[in-house]
Structure formats: structure tokens, C-alpha cells
């Protein structure tokens, strides 16, 4: 089978984005663009699955792409995951943008180009392509955040996101440049080999590792580098928030796993006494605790979900730390968690979109009071996704957390597991608070009553996420098996 087949997911997204951009320029109305975007995402995801099933061993010339682009099971898994996240965001945009008078077609091209960058990030085996992928993903995400041009909040959120994102990219680049100086390599495998051979003792490498960790922590929005996240998530139009919370975060975690395990996998960079694991362990503790405590105090549900996405990054970091002892098991729990997190978060934001309409976007807890009795069809999926985010069985979120805790325990990180468990109990408080407002409160007299919007696109997105949340929650073994295969990439 030819090389074109192996990189077909990339080609489909790239050409699809260009075709949609052209058709948007010439068409009078942008009605079908959301559908077209979803189809492009679905096709790319399907081709990635086809490559997975066909097997990479029989594809000739795959090594001509390395190290620039590493097509392995890890990157194919992320292709499917990112296309799923992108497709859900596109479906939500199809309902949200016309409803809130933002119906401009460039949203969809930006979404596709940004996802292309995220996919490249997951497949990059060289610092150069990693940087290009990171910029492609981030530039699209900045523009999506600023999409509501007349809103000061949107511009402000985008500004903070842009400034801190560029700062983080500069930190990462300086770190990579130092590593290049110390080892003479920009490909991750070469860096890893040189560090194993003894280069990791140099002070330059230590400084580089600190800078790279700080840059990565910015990108996955870990405390203390999380300041941009709530503002960018709140200011952005909700489908863009969804995209940032699911796809951008997954892409950043893919980059983190690939860089840490491939380049910094030598004994002196990856051990419990030195290197990145102890640093990330403390970052994880801070991230979970701070995010959960602040999330409980929010008045806006959208902002609460932003802090909740930071807290989930903390849980995932626990599993990233655990990869130092067992790459396959802990790595698989990261991938599986990202999958459950993607469907639950996209569903929760989708349900929030569904609960509002033009001029009356539902954002605060008050907006949602009593909606469970008045509009059960809108409240029920919301409840399901929140229960999944809280990690209560029989939903996907439960097994996501279960696998992470198990991987951390088996790596001997008992104290970290206990902190993560306590945090997930605290986290349940603010998810259930939404349920209390939806089902047990009545709106105050004279307060505006939220009326759900109607949109086939949003309904479709909610249906897909709800099915996946239940499917992953009822029979997680098969997906976990796939994640295990994906996580065992060569170091």
C-alpha cells in the first residue's frame, strides 16, 4: 500500500479545509458548511481507522517520512480522537453560530486547519515539525477565540490566550534550541539517544528541560500556568471553547507524551529523584487542588467548566507521571482518559449551548434553574455529561478515572493517587451543583427564563457524545485495548 494511504487523514483535512474555504468565498450562504466540515472530519477519522486496521507493517516507505512525521498507532489514535473532537465542535457551531448571529463561514476552515496542526503535533518526531504543528494549531485557536468580533470579552480572552501562548512557545523553542546545542539533534529519537549516552549531565540540558516543561505546562493549562484558560474559555464562542477544551488539550498532551518519553526517557531525566517526574507530580497536585477549589466558587457554568478542564488536566498529569514506570499501561490510561474527557466535555458544552438561545445565552447557574422540569429533553443529556465528568458509574468518566488511579497505584504513586481521589470527590460537588439548580430550584420571580434552542446539528452532537459516554462506560475493555496498542510507541 502506498504512502499516500498512510497520510490520508492529513491530506483529507488539508484539502477539505481548502475546498471549504473556497466554497465559502463563492457561496452566498454558509448553510451547509457545518455539515461539510463534519463530513471531512468523519472521512479523515475513518481513513485513520482504516490505516490502523490495515496495519502499518505493510506500508512501504513509511520510514522516508521519519523523523518529520511518525505515522504509528499513537498518532493514528490521536487522528481519530482529534477528528472526533473537531467534528463535535463543528456540529455545535452549526447550531450555535446562526442562533447567535455569528454565521460566518471562516469558522469551519479555521477549525479544520487548527485540527490539522493538532494531528501534526501528535505525529511529529522532530522538534521542527512539532513547532510547525504547534503554531498551526495555536494560530487557528487564537482566531477562533476572537471570533465574536463585536464582543470585548471575546477580544480580551483571545488577547490573553495569544500573549501567554506565544510566550509559552518561545520558552519551548529556547529549550529545544539548547537541547540542539547540547546534543546536535532536533529529532526526538536522536535527542533521546544522545541524552542516554551521557549528555544529560550538562547544565544546559537541565535548563532546557525546565523551559520545555514550563512551555508544555502552559499548553496543557496546568497550574501555575493556567491563568489564560478561564478567560479564553469564557470569552470564546462556546463551540470554540469546546474545540479548545477537547482537541487543543488532547494535542498538547500528545506532544507532552511524545517529547517526554522519546527525548527525555534516559535514567537521569526520568526517575523519581530527578528529572521531570517529580516536577510534574507537584504540578499535578497543584493543578487538581487549585482548579477544583476555584471551580466550586464560580457563578458562571461556562467558567466552571473551564476550571473543570484544568482539573482534568491535573488527573491526566498524574498518569503522565506514572508513565515513568510503565509506559504502556499509564500511557494507555492517558489516551483512554482523553477519549472519555473529549466526549463528556463536548457533550457538556453542547448541552449548555442547547439551553440558551439568541440574546439569552445560558451561562450562569441561575440561567439553568428549573430547566429540568420545564425542558427535560435539554436537561437530561446535560445531567449525563456532568455525571460522566464527575466520574460516577456507569458513564465513561468513571472508567477514565479508574484506569488512571490503577496505573498510578501500580507505579507506586500511592500518595498521588490518594490526592487525585480526594480531588475527584471535591470535583463532584460543583458538577452536582448544576444538577441541583436544574432539578431542584425554581427561577426567581421576574428573572428571565431560559428557553432551549432547536437545532438538528446540536442534537446530533449530543446524541453522538451521549452514545459514546454510555458505550465507553458500559464496555470500556475494547477501547482500552486499542489505547494500550497506541501507547506502546517506540522510545
Amino acid at each position: 500500500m502506498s504512502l499516500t494511504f498512510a497520510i490520508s487523514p492529513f491530506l483529507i483535512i488539508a484539502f477539505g479545509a481548502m475546498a471549504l474555504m473556497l466554497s465559502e468565498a463563492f457561496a452566498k450562504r454558509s448553510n451547509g458548511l457545518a455539515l461539510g466540515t463534519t463530513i471531512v472530519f468523519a472521512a479523515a477519522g475513518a481513513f485513520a481507522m482504516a490505516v490502523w486496521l490495515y496495519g502499518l507493517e505493510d506500508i512501504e516507505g513509511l520510514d522516508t517520512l521519519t523523523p518529520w512525521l511518525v505515522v504509528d498507532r499513537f498518532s493514528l489514535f490521536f487522528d481519530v480522537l482529534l477528528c472526533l473532537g473537531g467534528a463535535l465542535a463543528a456540529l455545535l457551531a452549526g447550531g450555535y453560530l446562526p442562533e447567535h448571529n455569528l454565521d460566518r463561514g471562516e469558522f469551519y476552515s479555521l477549525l479544520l486547519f487548527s485540527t490539522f496542526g493538532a494531528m501534526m503535533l501528535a505525529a511529529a518526531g522532530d522538534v521542527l515539525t512539532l513547532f510547525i504543528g504547534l503554531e498551526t494549531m495555536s494560530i487557528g485557536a487564537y482566531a477562533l477565540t476572537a471570533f465574536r468580533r463585536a464582543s470585548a470579552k471575546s477580544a480580551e480572552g483571545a488577547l490573553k490566550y495569544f500573549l501567554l501562548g506565544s510566550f509559552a512557545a518561545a520558552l519551548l523553542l529556547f529549550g529545544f534550541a539548547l537541547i540542539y546545542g547540547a546534543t546536535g539533534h532536533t529529532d526526538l529519537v536522536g535527542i533521546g539517544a544522545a541524552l542516554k549516552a551521557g549528555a544529560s549531565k550538562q547544565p544546559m540540558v537541565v535548563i532546557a528541560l525546565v523551559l520545555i516543561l514550563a512551555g508544555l505546562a502552559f499548553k496543557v493549562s496546568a497550574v501555575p500556568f493556567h491563568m489564560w484558560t478561564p478567560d479564553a474559555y469564557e470569552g470564546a464562542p462556546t463551540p470554540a471553547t469546546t474545540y479548545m477544551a477537547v482537541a487543543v488539550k488532547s494535542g498538547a498532551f500528545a506532544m507532552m507524551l511524545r517529547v517526554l518519553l522519546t527525548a527525555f526517557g534516559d535514567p537521569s531525566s526520568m526517575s523519581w529523584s530527578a528529572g521531570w517526574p517529580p516536577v510534574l507530580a507537584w504540578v499535578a497536585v497543584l493543578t487538581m487542588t487549585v482548579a477544583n477549589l476555584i471551580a466550586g466558587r464560580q457563578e458562571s457554568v461556562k467558567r466552571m467548566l473551564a476550571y473543570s478542564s484544568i482539573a482534568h488536566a491535573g488527573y491526566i498529569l498524574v498518569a503522565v507521571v506514572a508513565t515513568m514506570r510503565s509506559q504502556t499501561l499509564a500511557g494507555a490510561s492517558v489516551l483512554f482518559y482523553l477519549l472519555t474527557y473529549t466526549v463528556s466535555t463536548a457533550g457538556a458544552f453542547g448541552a449548555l449551548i442547547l439551553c440558551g438561545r439568541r440574546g439569552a445565552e445560558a451561562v450562569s447557574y441561575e440561567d439553568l434553574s428549573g430547566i429540568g422540569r420545564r425542558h427535560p429533553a435539554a436537561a437530561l443529556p446535560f445531567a449525563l455529561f456532568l455525571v460522566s465528568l464527575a466520574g460516577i458509574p456507569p458513564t465513561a468518566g468513571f472508567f477514565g478515572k479508574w484506569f488512571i488511579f490503577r496505573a498510578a497505584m501500580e507505579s507506586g504513586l500511592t500518595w498521588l493517587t490518594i490526592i487525585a481521589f480526594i480531588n475527584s470527590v471535591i470535583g463532584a460537588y460543583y458538577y452536582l451543583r448544576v444538577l441541583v439548580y436544574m432539578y431542584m430550584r425554581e427561577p426567581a420571580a421576574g428573572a428571565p427564563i431560559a428557553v432551549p434552542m432547536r437545532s438538528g446539528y446540536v442534537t446530533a452532537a449530543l446524541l453522538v457524545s451521549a452514545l459514546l459516554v454510555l458505550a465507553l462506560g458500559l464496555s470500556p475493555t475494547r477501547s482500552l485495548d486499542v489505547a494500550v496498542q497506541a501507547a506502546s510507541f517506540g522510545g
Partner: protein
Amino acid sequence: MTGIANYVVLSGVLFAIGGIGFLVRRNVLVALMSIEIMLNAVNLLLVAFNRLHAGELTGQLFAFFIIAAEAAEVAVGLAIVLSLFRIKRTVRSDEADLLKN
């Protein structure tokens, strides 16, 4: 290789100036310039290290890619600054304070 060490120190100093400028100054345009200084420090470092690892042009090539990608990034950044300025008539980041807990 004293020559290269000098470049590394210069690049470190530039990077620090840019970083401090970014963290201290509240004018968005100055913050953008500070990021550019940091990235130029990276470029300088890459080109200097390319002398150390002569034979391949990886470092120089990387610097070109950074220049190109940053041009694209700044284009989007300035558009965001413009859109904020149109609404709020300010380019100071401490006056953009609508979003809070």
C-alpha cells in the same frame, strides 16, 4: 569554541530581557515586541549552535522556519489587538479586565 560561548551568553541575555519585558510591561504592543526579542534570541542560539554541529544546516533551517511561523502568528496577534482597540480604545492589558472570577 569561545566564540560560540559568547553567542550563547548574548542569546541568554536577550531571552531574559524579552522575558522580563513581557512580564513587567502592560502595553500589549511592548509585550509583542518582547516576545519577538525572545524569539530572536532563539534564532541567534540556533544559528550559533549550527557552527558547533557543522556539516548539516539544521540550526539555520530551523531559524528560517521560526521567522516564517512567527510572522503568521504576529499577524493574528495584531488583528486581535486591533479588535480589542476598536472596542475598548486601549492597548493596555491591565485595562482589559472584564473577565474575572
